[in-house]
């Protein structure tokens, strides 16, 4: 049988800022067979999306399909007219984009948009299309399928929108569906369910699909075959199992290695030593919006958060999007004055707002942001960006300043000539190094790292992590390391704090987080991270699935915010009484109504149920209370 899609010698060029043509996809050829899910994997800029879009004969503005042949369903796509292409798009080939929130028209109700392509192409009557959409909603596990369509995009959560996009793609029964990083913008817990319904929908229908992603673990769940891309060229094409177990190209091996980071942090002095903390945060309450008479914000985000970091160590903070991680960093930096509580630097209470702090206090706490691009003033050369804190905090000028700038650049492993360049000329990884150098320029005791590697590719991000660890060893700086990614946190942190809806759920050493009992939310978070093996997605337990599908619900008062989703909840107690924060014998603080013994027992029961209830999982989960200590393979 002829392949559904055949790409031969595809070449795409793009005009850059100076008007020069660059080749962004070079001589790419592959085939997609009927009923197959094929994945395009590569880092940002490797041309994944560009290739996927050119399957529909579409080139983003500024790019141009310069050569090659794309055959879809025996038609030569690249030689079709605009009109013919339009009649193909949405009917025979459907596209599921990355950002669901931006891809829905905010002014139109959802159902109208979901069935739009069926109406444009007149493949069915409106009533029929609506009925089909509703049945798709049901199939995709969307709540309230009958009424959902009358809502507007802003009234629906991100994970649901993403599933609505899938419904939109499926409504015309296209021959080929293209998924472009459909879960990248989602939290891990949300991602699980979306992946599952996507896979089910494609497989049950026997659809052909192209799945674009940068995440190997995700692709391992979805694809039959994987195409590895780098700089617009194909590195390796093979069936998923071979890519994972027997990669041929070096680049694939690097990707695999970067996807499973090793622990980098040197374990320093045993925990519990009495070294004074650099920073101590006590019972912070903070939020946004108007403040009432007692200074309490209208939208409280952080509720009673406390932490301490010893010199030269790293505290990791993880949590879902919106859990208040960045808010915590902003409170410590004085950018958002807290409503309650206090921040102490070396035992001295700091004024709440940065404006009131002394220059030396400001110097000791530096902040590095996630978006390397927006964190550097594009109108100033690197030398000046790095020079300013030197001048501001240390009064360095002239040649001494220039010398120090060169030293800083060397510290972050960049050439001294970089000082004359502008941020726009640097790559993402280089920019993030400059950000780090700027923080180092102040010679701080603490650096707040807010998602410093999230916007970077795995390989580049891994290099930044290495750099952070080395700098810590050399200079003894403490880090508050914020991330939503468990594997990054486990790679470099001594202690980990899990935040949920602005409350600390669990806080302990890295080791303690590998041991049962875990807080129910920690358990969910850990089991939601995709593993780099096929079949992980199918093996997820029902409990995890159920918990994962809920979203953050902010509750007022001191009751447990995880109540709605928790499978171990005690109604009448968890949602009413203030939740105690208890120290467990493994050396972690856990905020839960359940006691240590209860949690151990319940986890044991759960595992037992799962194994008996799901015989298809051949190997038992490799952790259980019976095995004791090292449970989850960090």
């Amino acid at each position, binding site marked *: 049988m002829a392949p559904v899609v055949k790409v031969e010698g595809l070449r795409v060029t793009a005009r850059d*800022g100076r008007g020069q043509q660059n080749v962004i996809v070079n001589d790419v050829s592959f085939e997609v067979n009927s009923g197959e899910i094929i994945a395009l994997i590569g880092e940002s800029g490797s041309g994944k999306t560009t290739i996927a879009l050119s399957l529909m004969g579409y080139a983003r503005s500024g790019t141009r399909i310069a050569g090659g042949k794309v055959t879809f369903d025996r038609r030569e796509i690249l030689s079709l007219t605009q009109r013919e292409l339009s009649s193909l798009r949405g009917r025979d080939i459907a596209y599921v984009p990355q950002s669901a929130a*931006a891809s829905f028209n905010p002014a139109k109700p959802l159902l109208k948009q979901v069935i739009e392509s069926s109406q444009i192409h007149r493949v069915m009557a409106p009533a029929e299309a609506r009925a089909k959409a509703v049945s798709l909603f049901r199939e995709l596990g969307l709540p309230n399928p009958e009424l959902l369509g009358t809502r507007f995009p802003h009234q629906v959560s991100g994970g649901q929108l993403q599933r609505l996009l899938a419904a939109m793609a499926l409504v015309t029964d296209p021959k080929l569906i293209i998924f472009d990083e459909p879960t990248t913008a989602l939290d891990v817990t949300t991602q699980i369910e979306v992946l599952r319904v996507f896979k089910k929908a494609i497989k049950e229908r026997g659809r052909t699909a192209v799945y674009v992603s940068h995440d190997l673990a995700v692709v391992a769940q979805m694809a039959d075959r994987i195409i590895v891309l780098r700089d617009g060229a194909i590195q390796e094409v093979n069936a998923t199992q071979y890519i994972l177990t027997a990669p041929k190209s070096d680049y694939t091996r690097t990707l695999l290695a970067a996807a499973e980071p090793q622990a980098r942090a040197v374990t320093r002095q045993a925990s519990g030593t009495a070294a004074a903390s650099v920073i101590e945060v006590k019972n912070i309450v903070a939020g946004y919006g108007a403040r009432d008479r007692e200074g309490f914000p209208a939208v409280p985000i952080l509720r009673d958060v406390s932490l301490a970091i010893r010199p030269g160590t790293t505290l990791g903070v993880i949590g879902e999007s919106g859990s208040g991680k960045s808010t915590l960093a902003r409170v410590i930096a004085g950018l958002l004055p807290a409503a309650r509580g206090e921040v102490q630097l070396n035992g001295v209470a700091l004024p709440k707002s940065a*404006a009131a702090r002394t220059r030396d206090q*400001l110097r000791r706490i*530096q902040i590095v942001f996630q978006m390397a691009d927006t964190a550097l003033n*594009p*109108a100033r050369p690197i030398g000046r960006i790095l020079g300013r804190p030197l001048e*501001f905090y240390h009064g360095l000028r002239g040649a001494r300043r220039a010398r120090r700038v060169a030293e800083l650049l060397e510290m972050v492993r960049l050439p001294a000539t970089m000082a004359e360049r502008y941020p*726009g000329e640097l790559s993402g990884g280089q920019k993030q190094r400059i950000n780090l150098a*700027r923080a180092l320029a102040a010679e701080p005791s603490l650096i707040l790292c807010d998602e410093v590697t999230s916007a970077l590719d795995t390989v580049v991000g891994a290099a930044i992590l290495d750099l952070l660890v080395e700098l810590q060893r050399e200079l003894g700086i403490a880090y508050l390391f914020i991330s939503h990614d468990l594997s990054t946190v486990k790679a470099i942190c001594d202690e980990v704090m899990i935040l949920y809806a602005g409350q600390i759920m669990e806080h302990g050493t890295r080791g303690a987080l590998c041991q049962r009992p875990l807080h129910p939310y920690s358990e969910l978070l850990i089991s939601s991270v995709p593993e780099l093996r096929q079949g992980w997605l199918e093996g997820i337990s029902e409990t995890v699935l159920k918990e994962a599908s809920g979203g953050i619900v902010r509750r007022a008062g001191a009751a447990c915010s995880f109540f709605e989703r928790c499978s171990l909840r005690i109604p009448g107690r968890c949602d009413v009484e203030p939740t105690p924060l208890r120290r467990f014998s493994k050396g972690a603080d856990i905020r839960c109504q359940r006691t240590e013994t209860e949690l151990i027992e319940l986890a044991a029961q759960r595992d037992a149920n799962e194994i008996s209830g799901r015989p298809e999982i051949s190997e038992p989960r490799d952790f259980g209370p019976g095995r004791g200590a090292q449970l989850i393979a960090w």
Partner: protein
Amino acid sequence: MIAAQKAPASARRRLRLPLAGIIGAGIVAFWVLMAIIGPYIAPHDVGALIDNDLFGRMRWGLPLGSDYLGRDVLSRILVGTRYSIGVAAAATFLAILMGGTLGMLAAVSRSAVDMVLSRFFDMLISIPSKMSALVVIAALGSSIPVLIATVAVIYTPGAFRIWRALSVNVNALDFVEVARARGEGTAYLIREEILPNILGPVLTDFGLRFVFAILLLSSLSFLGLGIQPPNADWGSLVRENINGLADGALAVVMPSFAIATLTIGINLVIDNLPGRWSSTGER
């Protein structure tokens, strides 16, 4: 990520204009040059009655003919350039100085300052510009300082709005937050972090506002409320010679032509600037 891509690029790169833009730039440059050297190259004295014919045709020595009193039109236009462009430029500059500074200040300050300033200018903007100009000029009489001040005040709220909107966008970027966490003061934030990154659009805004100022000033002169005799800008020249309109006298056509070429020239430049320079202006 979107915000990241929209972050203004450094303004150092060379500007490349399409042909229409180059033509526009040429016209503007010509008139600016005339504003500077016009009075020195004018062939006749502006006040001298040199032609016995009223609304004389063009001829040797009087390349653009004569006006309603028999004065040399070319000389009067050349000298008028200085008033038309000079007053408008001074007024625009002042408007931008006030509106722009306050706009950036509002963007980087706390919400309370921002709100007070924004509300204040929202209110000012609701008074139509020609009306306020008329009232003030009626009250204080028309002189060049009064004209400059009035037009400046009229365009301040608009400048404030645009500068504030542009600055708010930049202010939301992380590098400003970094500077703030470093403990930098408001003046530094405005000067080093905000201003360099809004320079492109802001220059565009200057151009647009300058056009509005020229239009307003020439309308005032046309109504007899602008530059007062014996001085004359282009608007007053049109007014003086309006009687020659029916015969299509050069004395009324040429000043109109001057106004139109200058404003169209500026618009051509602005419309053809690369995207990152653009700003949206309102009249």
